[in-house]
């Protein structure tokens, strides 16, 4: 425990928040695998508060001395921490549950929040909130898994007076609970009115990112919007996002982008994802991969751009995900597209990109129809014309033949072909109109297939 408070004193002397946060980590450090056990063994529940007070005082006596109130607050925090560590050690020995760990870690969280509210903890210590929040979330998830494994109805009496069972809340109840506490930290940071240099507002994006992760995990990503709304209400008082650490910015932009993506606002989504892409560290492959997972489908719909082999070079998983589809789209092979989509369905659905990628079929179809148009060649030169003009009156039957071929020989009736053509026109993938009575499609002389050079 002495080591712990040496670290504590050092952190305070240097005002190094990350060093301080490291002392509150509930895992063993690489240099000291026995760290938790040593801390746990070095005290006893009857004496722990006294011990901590002693260690804090003795280690920092020669340093800038801590305010009485602050010491009181930290004693509470470390006493709760010591207690939680006891549970972690017990879990490792198979003598406790993650649920217990989560509960005791919640006490640490509360003690720390109280520290800021009542005992004047300074803003440089906010990395402690990061560590606390990070593990609160992880413990909640472990507790939920543990509880779902030990099946059976362990919900309390409240369910007894309900009309129906409530399956959803039982499943991830701990993580839901955790969200409440993360929101407390969020408010703690958001509402600090101290001058910016010493404000807890600097913790806001880290906590927001944690909340985003939690909401996505809870399958209620849309709740992230509430956080963003709150944030934008405070935007004037907030330091600019660009002043925050890059890692927090990347994560924040990524989640903002994915949110737009899930709301089908692909234009905005692309904007944020590109920002995240550009900010992301070039060696953070896992993160780059995450960004591309959404950016590629996004681009497919906004600008109809497909990923190149070179771009996907470092990401074998993305190659597997996207290359087969991309190839079918390029070739305009509808049947192969359907098969590729079906084959990747599980993976796509898991990443929530299936419903977006599905719409890539439009681009495949566009490419197929464009081939028909090009194969039609040119009209004969009329008098006075020097540049040849492509044949712009194409019989529906020709498109139909192509679509039947593209669908692997399946017969597609004329009405459906017309329906597909009308869609192309409606979506501005093709310019022209269908003259139903005459059975032809009249295409625009200038740019029948916008953005494709013909």
């Amino acid at each position, binding site marked *: 425990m002495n080591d712990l408070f040496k670290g504590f004193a050092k952190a305070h002397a240097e005002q190094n928040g990350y060093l301080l946060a490291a002392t509150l980590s509930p895992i063993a450090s690489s240099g000291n695998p026995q760290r938790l056990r040593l801390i746990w063994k070095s005290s006893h529940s009857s004496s722990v508060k006294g011990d901590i007070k002693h260690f804090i005082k003795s280690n920092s006596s020669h340093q800038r001395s801590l305010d009485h109130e602050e010491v009181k607050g930290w004693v509470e925090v470390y006493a709760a921490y010591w207690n939680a560590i006891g549970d972690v050690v017990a879990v490792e020995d198979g003598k406790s549950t993650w649920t217990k760990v989560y509960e005791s870690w919640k006490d640490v969280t509360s003690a720390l929040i109280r520290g800021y509210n009542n005992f004047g903890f300074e803003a440089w210590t906010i990395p402690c909130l990061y560590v606390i929040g990070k593990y609160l979330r992880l413990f909640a998830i472990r507790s939920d898994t543990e509880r779902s494994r030990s099946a059976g109805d362990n919900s309390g009496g*409240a369910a*007894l007076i*309900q009309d129906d069972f409530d399956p959803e809340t039982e499943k991830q109840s701990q993580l839901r609970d955790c969200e409440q506490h993360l929101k407390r930290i969020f408010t703690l940071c958001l509402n600090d*009115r101290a001058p910016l240099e010493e404000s807890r507002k600097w913790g806001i994006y880290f906590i927001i990112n944690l909340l985003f992760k939690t909401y996505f995990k809870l*399958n209620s990503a849309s709740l992230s919007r509430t956080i963003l709304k709150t944030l934008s209400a405070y935007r004037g008082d907030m330091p600019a996002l660009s002043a925050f650490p890059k890692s927090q910015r990347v994560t924040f932009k990524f989640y903002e982008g994915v949110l737009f993506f899930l709301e089908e606002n692909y234009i905005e989504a692309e904007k944020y994802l590109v920002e995240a892409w550009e900010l992301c560290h070039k060696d953070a492959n896992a993160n780059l991969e995450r960004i591309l997972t959404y950016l590629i489908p996004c681009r497919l719909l906004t600008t109809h751009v497909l990923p190149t082999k070179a771009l996907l070079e470092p990401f074998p998983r993305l190659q597997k995900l996207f290359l087969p589809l991309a190839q079918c789209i390029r070739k305009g092979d509808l049947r192969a597209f359907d098969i590729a989509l079906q084959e990747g369905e599980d993976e796509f659905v898991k990443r*929530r990109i299936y419903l977006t990628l599905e719409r890539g079929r439009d681009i495949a179809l566009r490419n197929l129809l464009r081939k028909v148009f090009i194969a039609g060649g040119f009209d004969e030169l009329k008098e006075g014309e020097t540049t040849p003009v492509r044949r712009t009156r194409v019989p529906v039957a020709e498109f139909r033949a192509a679509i039947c071929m593209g669908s692997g020989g399946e017969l597609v009736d004329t009405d459906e072909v017309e329906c597909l053509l009308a*869609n192309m026109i409606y979506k501005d993938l093709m310019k022209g109109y269908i003259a139903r009575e005459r059975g032809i499609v009249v295409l625009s002389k200038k740019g029948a297939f916008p953005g494709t050079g013909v």
Partner: protein
Amino acid sequence: MMPSWSSAQHPPGVVPQHPPPASYAYPPNPAFIPVQVRQGFGPYTTPPPPPPPAYNPYASNAAQAQASAPGTATSAPPAPVEQPKGSKTEWPESVRRYVQRSFHPENDDASVSRAELEAKLKDTIGSAKENNSLYTIDWDSMPLPQALVRADREAQLKLHHHAASLSLTTPVYTDDTFNPRKRKSNDFANNDTSMPPWHSTNSGRSLEDRISYSPDKRAALDDPKSSKFQKEANKRKRRFENEYKAANISSPSPTPPTSGPIVGTSEVLEKKYLRLTAPPVASNVRPERVLRQTLDLLKKKWRKESNYSYICDQFKSMRQDLTVQRIKNEFTVSVYEIHARIALEKGDIGEYNQCQTQLRSLYAMGLKGNPIEFKAYRILYFIHTANRTGLNDTLADLTAAEKEEKPIKHALDVRSTLALGNYHKFFQLYLDTPNMGAYLMDMFVTRERLAALCNICKGYKPDVKLRFITEELGFESDADAAQFIIDYQGQHLLEDRTEYIAFLTGKAGGLFESARASAFKKVDIKGQI
């Protein structure tokens, strides 16, 4: 019809003024309780005779009759005494006293608006009448509507997961143990929703009151290090923190949890649904054996009478009995399935959704039933509500074998045709929907017709035959198709050409675009899954 008078005078949440405004017409009179109720209920046509200054049983009788009249057009309001139409209801003296008591100024509650009070009163008496318990209920000890409204809010706060969808609840409270002082959050829209619930007990409470609410006296401690400003900030923070905690920890259950699920002993087949506010009593709960008989009875009754409000109420009480006894088996599945189907048929999406949610977890437990049918409904419903998250989750849950089952395949095809705008295939699928899926598809078919029409108007020039629209958009007849176009102000696009009617797509411009946009925008989600 809405109570026009009361809503105009007292929007929900606005505290009625004392003394009553001039429009109340009659000054408060200790010997006579002003019969303001009658002005509050719509369908009443003949104005009431001015009540004499002394107690007049007829006037207040009429008021009660109005008070208990259901607001919907489906069932005729019970006729007041002087209007002998339909079945005549005799209102017991005790009910009249109850109504009087409810409107007595002394019992006014600032937090319960007039409209709410009237609705509650109507509800209480109406359901008592339906139950034939008008004479059995001890009206003199019945809690006032004000108290019932507050109790409802309390219950809603606790059950907020389902609160939105419990549209058909008509609770009748027979105990009066709850504490009318215990005010909880307002669930209705009013001005003080942004305030923590306890602050609205008295809307006149001052800021100082609220500050001193904070039990944390450390706020007053002098911190030598922080400035005055900092202290103030901390104080505010602490207050917020306290409130936050209180607001987020749901109010503790009034009774300690019992050791396990109860086993019912009631032998009564039919039971009126009431929302529980306390742990259930075994003598009021039917065991599974009895519930099975109940289900048979209800199935017969539904076939014979098709009285949905009765059936729904009975099913809700069955579901409640199953829940409190923790009965989760194939019988439970069939109760929920049958209720879901009936609700679907009657367009009661709220109840339908509640049943669907339950069925999903019951199937997930491996219980037998008709998961294929209901999973297909689920997909169609998500298409209706344009719930991408829900669709994605449902897709993730389906096994490869399930995807080949006809109803599910149909629903998935519906989904993909819509995603790709293939209205041609969509309307073919619409005309060939398995099970009761058509009830769900009917909910979004108009919107998809508009979308298709937009497509056609942009894609085809100069015109198409009306028959083509009829066939492509799955209308029953040309007349239906024409009517649809006319309904959206497209009459000028129809042209009679002796052999056929032409639809001038080239002239439509953006006519259907705005209708399409608004049809896609408003998806009413009740009892969200």
